[in-house]
C-alpha cells in the first residue's frame, strides 16, 4: 500500500496545492498547480491549473498552461490553454483548442555569440581605460 502512487479518485473534487509527488493520477475534478514527474489525467477527469512535468498523459479535460518534456494526448483528451513540449504525441480524436509551443526553454535557444561579444567588448574597453590611466600617470611624472 505504501508504494501506491497518489491519486485523486473519480467523483472527488479537490482545490489546493499538491507537492512532493513523483507521480499522480487524477480521475476527479481538480483545480491546482502541480510540479511533478509524471501526471496522468484520466478520461473522467477535469483539471484546471498549471502543470510542470517530465511526462503528462492526458485523457480528460485540461485547462491551463502545461509544460512537459513529453506529452501524450489520447483520443478522449480535450485541451485548452497552452502546452509547451519537447516531445508530443497526439491520438486521432484529441481535441485541442490551445497554443502549442515547441521547445519552450528559450534560455538554451538564444544565440550565445552576442552575449560573449558584449563581454569581449567590455573587457577591451576596460583595457583601454587602464592604458589611458597609465599614460596619464606617466605624464604626471
Amino acid at each position: 500500500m505504501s508504494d501506491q502512487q497518489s491519486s485523486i479518485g473519480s467523483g472527488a473534487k479537490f482545490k489546493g496545492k499538491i507537492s512532493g509527488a513523483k507521480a499522480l493520477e487524477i480521475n476527479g475534478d481538480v483545480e491546482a498547480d502541480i510540479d511533478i514527474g509524471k501526471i496522468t489525467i484520466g478520461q473522467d477527469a477535469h483539471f484546471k491549473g498549471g502543470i510542470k512535468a517530465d511526462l503528462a498523459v492526458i485523457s480528460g479535460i485540461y485547462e491551463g498552461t502545461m509544460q512537459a518534456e513529453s506529452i501524450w494526448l489520447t483520443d478522449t483528451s480535450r485541451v485548452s490553454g497552452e502546452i509547451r513540449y519537447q516531445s508530443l504525441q497526439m491520438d486521432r480524436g484529441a481535441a485541442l483548442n490551445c497554443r502549442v509551443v515547441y521547445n519552450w526553454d528559450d534560455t538554451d535557444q538564444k544565440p550565445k555569440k552576442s552575449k560573449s561579444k558584449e563581454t569581449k567588448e567590455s573587457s577591451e574597453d576596460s583595457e583601454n581605460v587602464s592604458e589611458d590611466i597609465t599614460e596619464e600617470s606617466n605624464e604626471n611624472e
Partner: protein
Amino acid sequence: MSEITYISKEVSVEGVLEAADLKVIVAGSFSGNINANEVVLEEGSRFEGEVEARTIIIEGELKGKVKSYQLTVAQTARVDGELLTNSIEVASGAEIAGSIARVS
C-alpha cells in the same frame, strides 16, 4: 480502484477535498478540509484541519476537528482537537488531547 483518493507518503497537500461517497486514504501530509464517506489517516501521516466522514480511522497525527459517525483511534495515533462522533473506539497507547462529544 480509480474511485479511491490516495495521498502517498512523500506527498504534501494543502486544500479542500470533497469526496462525499468515496474513500480517502492519507499516508502523507494534508492540511485543509476533507469531506468523504470513509477516511483513513495512516500511520506516519499528518493531518491538520477539519475532516468529516461516515467512518474515520486515525493512525497518524491529527490536529483539528473530526466529525464522524464511527471513529477509530489506533494505537499509533496522536490526536489534538475536537472529536465529534456517535461511536468511538480508542486503542490502548493512543494519545488524545482535546474534547470528545456526540454528534448532535
